[in-house]
């Protein structure tokens, strides 16, 4: 059984057909790329997957159950986490507190024991802190744990966002342009990191990216979206030579 099945999903904003009859299938453990020109509807697909937007038609099946109509936090609880194209960290919280937020879902202590500072509170908070620190350690952000996340350099903010998404303990991770604004060296490091987290956390990853070297380098399969429609699907080599894809990116009458 596929981990995630997007079946004939479509969404309209007013008169605009942003995504139309989109079909994507992810098997467990895969690392899949979603590419397409600007405005093709890639982020909209992510927004539908995470419950931020409600698809106007079609169905999304995650681990055998439909997740359409669930609230974003329900979907996160089910095991899908994401990052954002334009980094959306909790800017006035420290790095450590940013990573603590997703562990809230699994907190065992209640409001009352928090307010009364009962032993359950100390135990629960201790647990959250330890897990959050472990997570930061993995991403090499331990020494920045007390800094406000707004003060981190750009590349580290991107890493922190991935760390925060992983803290939600997902089985499917959605990365929205993780390499945007990074230089080639940073992009290379990111590639390594993506491979590594997939194996370490036993994840399935769907990533949107404009940086072709990254997409072609890490992805096992690629979907191409143009004007809201999937126009091609295949391995990086197949995609590179697919005439429809070339047309979408470069326009017609280009000799390959």
């Amino acid at each position, binding site marked *: 059984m596929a981990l995630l099945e997007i079946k004939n999903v479509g969404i309209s904003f007013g008169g605009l057909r942003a995504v139309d009859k989109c079909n994507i299938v992810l098997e467990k453990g895969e690392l899949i790329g979603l590419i397409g020109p600007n405005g093709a509807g890639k982020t909209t697909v992510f927004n539908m997957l995470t419950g931020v937007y409600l698809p106007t038609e079609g169905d999304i099946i995650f681990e055998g159950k439909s997740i359409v109509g669930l609230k*974003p936090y329900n979907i996160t609880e089910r095991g899908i986490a994401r990052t954002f194209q334009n980094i959306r960290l909790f800017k006035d919280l420290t790095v450590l507190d940013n990573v603590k*937020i997703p562990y*809230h879902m699994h907190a065992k202590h209640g409001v009352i024991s928090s307010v009364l500072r009962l032993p359950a509170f100390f135990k629960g908070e201790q647990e959250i802190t330890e897990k959050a620190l472990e997570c930061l350690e993995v991403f090499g952000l331990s020494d920045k744990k007390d800094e406000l996340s707004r003060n981190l350099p750009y590349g580290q903010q991107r890493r922190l966002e991935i760390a925060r998404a992983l803290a939600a303990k997902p089985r499917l991770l959605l990365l929205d342009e993780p390499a945007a604004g990074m230089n080639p060296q940073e992009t290379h490091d990111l590639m390594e990191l993506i491979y590594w987290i997939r194996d370490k956390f036993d994840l399935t990853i769907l990533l949107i990216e404009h940086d072709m070297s990254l997409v072609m380098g890490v992805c096992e399969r690629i979907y191409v979206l143009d004007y809201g429609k999937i126009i091609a699907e295949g391995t990086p080599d197949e995609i590179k030579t697919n005439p429809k894809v070339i047309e979408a990116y470069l326009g017609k009458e280009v000799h390959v």
Partner: protein
Amino acid sequence: MNDQNKSGSFWKRNTPGILVAVGLLAVYLILHFWIQGFEIGGNKYQLNKYYTLNIYLMGMNIILAVSLNLVCGITGQLALGHAGFMAVGAYTSAVCTMKLGLPFAVGLLAGGLVAAVMGIIIGLPTLRLKGDYLAIATLGMGEIIRVILINIDYVGGASGLSPIPKLTNWTWIFFITVGTVLFVKNFINSTYGRACISVREDEIAAETMGINSTRYKTMAFCFGAFFAGVAGGLYAHNFFIIQPNLFNFFKSFEYLVMVVLGGLGSLTGSVLAASGLTVVNLALQNVPDLRMVVYSLVLITVMLFRPGGLMGTKELTFSIFKLNKKRGGDRGTSGN
């Protein structure tokens, strides 16, 4: 994980807390005896009624400002209906003690609980709104509560409810004020408080990180309403009479002003601003005609020169006195 947490270092670890506790106890005892009156060498010292009243008011203002800060500053929901919850608490508790003959403590608790339930009823539909829309909707809700109270004859309508027994005293004020501040402080320094802050920072990101934003907005609103209700109970049992028009939207503004002046999200800021404005008000009693003119000028000036409020989002802590740089035990230490 760290040896510091073992019993031997209990005193060292909790130095700031203990100092604050001792300080507060001293304040409590001194004012307790001063308000009651005491004799030294044949001279009788007693705080006059007027100052006593203002100390009580200071306590109530702190409760209201801190509880509003939980909603506006911590959770980031601009609510302008705090006086409405205060009214609900005031009327409920007064009815409990006056008409039902219940003890004061029960009255206060009932006032708080009814206000909290109102908070949930009002919060669920309105908290979907954002920013200014939420502000104006909560302001409207507060005004609706006031108009409804005017139209209930059982509680005296527009002419008000009296005579309410004077049951509020320094002990009630002090312990409820300290309790409220402690409650809110403990709440915001827990995973629940962080959830509220994450909603303030970025609601969509919070939702995709598994935070049910409606739940935490309503929770903050409900707690805020509870404490406003309790403060309303204290207020009612201090002034003999309450009228619906006392709790109009200007009252809500007053507390919002305290919160913003102190710094949104800063508890110590709210406490300082609430106390400070009470003192400013007291000092201006001598010039009744100009009181509000000066008050408004102070407000405008502070906002123009300290737009983030007196404290910004920071807290006044002991670390500025270099006593203890680390926060309490919940923070733990890093593993590297």
